[in-house]
């Protein structure tokens, strides 16, 4: 029976994700081609906006892996996003004249998020802290970091030539540069970078969750003790998943500062800690596709509302979360997909067995 879960295509198309048939893959290819072709007819403003919505996808997908597939809710993704952003800013700002400096800064930023996640994960997972305490600890970590960064105004708070900037944030952060290509927020190069990273993250995580390792990750979510009693070092696997999720949040953080050349402590505040949880819950945390769709859609909704109605955007997000939790506990996209699959199988049965 285990043979079914080996081989690239079989793993990619495995049971831990919705959307497996030829119709799905055709739609997926169509959408991917549409995204690749968009720069030929979209305005620079529209491209820059879409890139901004999509750059949060690695963070959302990381949380789906951590929460939906491994059962650990996190209010710390905003913190890992901001840690990477700040570290990127510090390194890139100090290596302005060195070729490949921003790339080094990107690696450094992601490594910083991953390292802090590893240290935190070591303490909570080997300490067997209960699953409902972990999100609270992460929220506390975020708020402490926000408070700390908010008081870093003044010239004494600088690393090399880069000022941390206190509550006003770090400004003039250089955009990513690879060779002669500059990945500024309004560039087509940045748009393509974001689309490529989004697709790679989605497909990569799809392979991961459907692999043998991914099955064990899901096994830990469903029954920790059983998985331990099958010979797995559960704490180690939980730390690994936590680090991957933090690194993906860090990737989003780096794309964000490269896009806007700016980051401030509110990126690790209460709101920033909550939003990824809302994106993940509304779409459906047990599906990468659902989280991908809801992240982009909700970023677009929040942005549109913010432009038109200002302060109501987050109120709408809150109501949306409440409605989802009450009426679609598994998430809106996941619930609709399951209903559709159920109806499809009923229709197939009806066709095979004739009308009742």
């Amino acid at each position, binding site marked *: 029976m285990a043979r079914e879960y080996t081989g690239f295509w079989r793993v990619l198309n495995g*049971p831990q994700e919705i959307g497996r048939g030829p119709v799905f893959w055709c739609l997926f290819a169509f959408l991917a081609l549409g995204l690749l072709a968009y720069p030929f007819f979209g305005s620079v403003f529209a491209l820059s906006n879409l890139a901004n919505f999509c750059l949060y996808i690695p963070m959302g997908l990381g949380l789906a892996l951590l929460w939906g597939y491994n059962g650990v809710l996190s209010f710390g993704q905003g913190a890992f996003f901001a840690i990477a952003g700040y570290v990127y800013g510090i390194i890139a700002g100090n290596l302005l004249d060195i070729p490949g400096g921003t790339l080094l800064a990107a690696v450094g930023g992601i490594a910083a998020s991953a390292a802090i996640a590893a240290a935190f994960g070591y303490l909570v997972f080997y300490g067997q802290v209960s699953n409902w305490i972990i999100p609270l600890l992460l929220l506390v970590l975020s708020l402490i970091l926000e408070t700390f960064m908010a008081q870093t105004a003044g010239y004494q708070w600088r690393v090399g030539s880069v000022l941390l900037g206190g509550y006003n944030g770090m400004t003039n952060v250089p955009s990513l540069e690879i060779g002669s290509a500059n990945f500024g927020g309004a560039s087509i190069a940045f748009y393509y970078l974001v689309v490529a990273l989004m697709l790679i993250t989605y497909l990569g995580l799809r392979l991961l969750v459907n692999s043998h390792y991914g*099955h064990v990750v899901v*096994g830990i979510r469903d029954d920790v*003790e059983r998985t331990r009693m099958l010979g797995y070092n559960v704490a180690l696997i939980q730390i690994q998943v936590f680090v991957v999720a933090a690194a993906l949040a860090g990737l989003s953080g780096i794309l964000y500062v490269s896009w806007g050349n700016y980051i401030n402590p509110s990126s690790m505040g209460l709101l920033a800690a909550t939003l990824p949880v809302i994106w993940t819950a509304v779409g459906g945390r047990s599906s990468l596709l659902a989280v991908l769709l809801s992240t982009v859609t909700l970023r677009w909704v929040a942005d549109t509302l913010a432009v038109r109605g200002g302060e109501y955007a987050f109120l709408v997000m809150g109501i949306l979360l409440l409605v989802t939790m009450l009426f679609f506990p598994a998430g809106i996209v996941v619930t609709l997909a399951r209903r559709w699959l159920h109806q499809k199988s009923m229709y197939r049965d009806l066709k095979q067995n004739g009308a009742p």
Partner: protein
Amino acid sequence: MPASSVSDGLVVLGAKDLTKSFGGIRAVDHLDLTLARGELRCLIGPNGAGKSTLFGLLSGLHRPDAGQIVFKDEDITNLKPFQRVRRGLCQKFQTTRIYRALTVAQNLVIADRTPRSSRRKNGRLSWALSTLGLDSEGEVPAGELSHSHQQWLEICLALATEPDLLLLDEPTAGMTPEETELTAQFVVNLNRQGLTVLVVEHDMAFVRYIAQRITVLHYGRIFTEGSLGEIESNHEVRRIYLGER
């Protein structure tokens, strides 16, 4: 760690002076237990005798307050549960613990820790799956299996770890007499294939079917050991366990 006196090749598991208390209650009290390689042993005793605690100590879910556990000539007293499983000691829990939302096939994927290993597997698992009728239920969600099939699936998950010692905690709880007999037959056949098995069971029909060496636990201590005939004719055992006056 020097091997203790109980580890001499023929002995697969030796527990010495094991003690475990919860609050003021001593669940396991200076208990010694030795299992020979290839043995099939039944552990019986009234409720609260310390059977499940003893299993927890052997599998590593509980840390003993005192005592030593030697498994295959190695002191495993301080090893974590997953390390004990990797050394060949696996447990089926008292309440069925399977991945209910996943299919039978997915359950088995998780249980196979080395899917890419070229090492030849001992074949017990595929034999067990076909004997218990689970091989045709690969795509069924484990939570939708009948109660007995869920119990059997959990035994198969344990077998997938290729254990040298299998601990079964009440494997027939909630089963019909026919299913109990089938399980007993299965356990006996498993043992005939060379696997050492330690079973905790309340159902005397199961114990009688297996009819092997029996250890009686009472107040966390070994009350007596013997063959089925010896145990059933022991007046004191009948009094404390079978409820006769």
